């Protein structure tokens, strides 16, 4: 018998690493990591990152002029445009192309050293931003542009390359994007605040009902205890994101209210659980002593339980507000409103500068609240 069990142990020792390796190989196949792609996409990544890292914070009141040039894609789909010969003008070489080709865009007699934003005006009328560039000291422009399939002419209408030249004139002011970001950030912070407040108000009575030391003294108490406890763990198995998705469908996509409902529910459930553990860990002695004076149940809770749990409750609540701000920045992606919704809209419409502004705001606010909440909690304990 001993020998058999030893052999089994040995087999186990050999099989376990093999099993683990097989498991890893399987996971790699399933998740399809492609390092080559990561490297080959470096230029694209650089483009996106440079825009993200260049948030729109301020604008000068600028005079904007734009120029555009029709690009037949593919060649011959519409007549080639007549080239202009004087004044600020664009030309392109070759004059037409197929999706995948690269064109060179030249500009002449443009304002010197001016910021220009390059973009496609699609046949449908939509805008597709390409990148930002700068004119040289002579007012010239030289940019390579790749033709995307989406720019193909349709219904006799061709796509145009358009440049928007902005010449600074006047004072530096907060950009519209920054104003929008601040607005939605406030929505997000208040969304977290109201959800934390409501969640806490719901969590307090639930936590008492889910605390074994208070409830499991009679039959009714024990039944309530088990019901509330299972309810709390059931709710906690749903992420705030999942709930927000559901409520966004009910109360409207992009509405902060959806986020508030989702966060309130998850906050109530998780604080309910944390509070109940805090209630369970209190010293029974004072409860005994106050009960022995002839106090009723409510008085016992008020004078023997509440003073013991207050620091924990406050600390957990502030901590949860911090968590809620962080979650609510993401909750917008599934339609919960606030800064996340703003961010997801900007990313989906390729406005990476605006997205960068939102990201900057999120980082600042989360960092500030993290710092604030840990300081406040330190003060309290």
């Amino acid at each position, binding site marked *: 018998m001993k020998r058999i069990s030893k052999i089994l142990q040995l087999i186990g020792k050999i099989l376990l690493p093999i099993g683990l390796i097989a498991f890893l190989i399987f996971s790699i196949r399933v998740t399809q990591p492609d390092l080559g792609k990561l490297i080959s996409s470096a230029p694209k990544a650089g483009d996106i990152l440079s825009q993200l890292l260049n948030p729109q914070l301020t604008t000068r009141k600028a005079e904007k002029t734009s120029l555009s040039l029709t690009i037949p894609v593919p060649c011959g789909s519409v007549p080639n445009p007549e080239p202009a010969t004087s004044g600020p003008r664009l030309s392109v070489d070759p004059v037409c192309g197929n999706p995948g080709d690269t064109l060179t865009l030249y500009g002449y007699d443009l304002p010197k050293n001016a910021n220009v934003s390059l973009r496609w005006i699609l046949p449908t009328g939509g805008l597709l931003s390409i990148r930002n560039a700068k004119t040289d000291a002579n007012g010239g422009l030289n940019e390579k542009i790749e033709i995307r399939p989406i720019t193909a002419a349709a219904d006799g209408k061709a796509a145009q390359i358009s440049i928007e030249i902005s010449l600074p004139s006047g004072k530096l002011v907060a950009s519209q994007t920054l104003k929008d970001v601040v607005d939605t950030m406030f929505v997000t912070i208040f969304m977290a605040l109201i959800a934390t407040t409501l969640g806490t108000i719901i969590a307090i009575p639930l936590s008492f009902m889910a605390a074994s030391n208070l409830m499991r003294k009679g039959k009714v108490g024990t039944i309530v205890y088990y019901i509330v406890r299972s309810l709390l763990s059931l709710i906690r198995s749903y992420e705030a994101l999942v709930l927000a998705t559901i409520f966004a469908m009910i109360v409207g996509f992009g509405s902060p209210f959806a986020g508030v409902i989702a966060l309130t529910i998850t906050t109530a459930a998780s604080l309910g659980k944390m509070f109940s553990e805090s209630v369970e860990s209190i010293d029974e002695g004072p409860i005994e002593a106050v009960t022995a*004076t002839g106090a009723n149940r409510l008085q016992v809770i008020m004078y023997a339980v509440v003073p013991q749990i207050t620091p924990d409750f406050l600390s957990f609540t502030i901590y949860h507000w911090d968590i809620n701000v962080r979650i609510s920045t993401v909750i917008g992606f599934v339609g919960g409103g606030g800064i996340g919704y703003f961010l997801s809209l900007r990313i989906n419409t390729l406005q990476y500068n605006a997205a960068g502004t939102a990201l900057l705001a999120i980082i600042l606010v989360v960092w500030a609240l993290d710092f604030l909440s840990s300081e406040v909690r330190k003060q309290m304990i």
Partner: protein
Amino acid sequence: MLKVEHLTKVYPGGTVALKDLSFEVEDGEFLVVIGLSGSGKSTLLRCINRLIDPTEGKITMDGADITAAKGAELRHIRRQIGMIFQHFNLVKRSSVMTNVLNGRLGYLNPWLSTMGIFPAEEKKRAQQALARLGIEDKVHSRADELSGGQQQRVGIARTLMQEPKLILADEPVASLDPVLAHSILQYLEQLNKDDKVTVICSLHYLDLIQRYATRVIGLKDGVKVFEGLPSEINRVKFKEIYGEEAQDIRATALE
């Protein structure tokens, strides 16, 4: 005053803490309960004010049936019975004043007191109770800032607020040094002699028993093995109650 008849307590786990225990306490007695840890002393004291519900038997105080009392009636009985604990059982984060006022909760309007509103005369009463125990200067301290002896005095002040007919003291000096032990027991003795409060107290030290008790009950495994005067406890009796290995434990520091 207090009559305990055929008291039995079996815990849910099956442990028999008290077995068919009967005794009576007269007005003004200082009854000391002795016995090893786990012999049922704490259970007995807690059955008297119903912090623990007895399994069988009957306890009456001045004719009122404690074991059958419920709700408001039980709270009414409890407020006449003060209790002092080995670990003081103060609410540590609350002030001394609040802790003492807690002793009055059974008399006060439940709604006002739950909101933290106490009448001025009750605060004055609390001040007086603290003055009587010599710690009126600690009124605004937090309970956990006090030393053990001071905390136990707050515990007694809390009990004084109940204007009790009976005080249950569960090893009140077991966490204190011998000097403090005497000082605390002297306060209890004072209440017993001057205020005519009956005291039931569990103690371990033979010299303390002989100094303070008017009568002694010995428990062993939940059964009463001794009942008599403190002078009747000699080494033989002591060993019977505490087992053969027991040394004559004393608070020798005071001899």
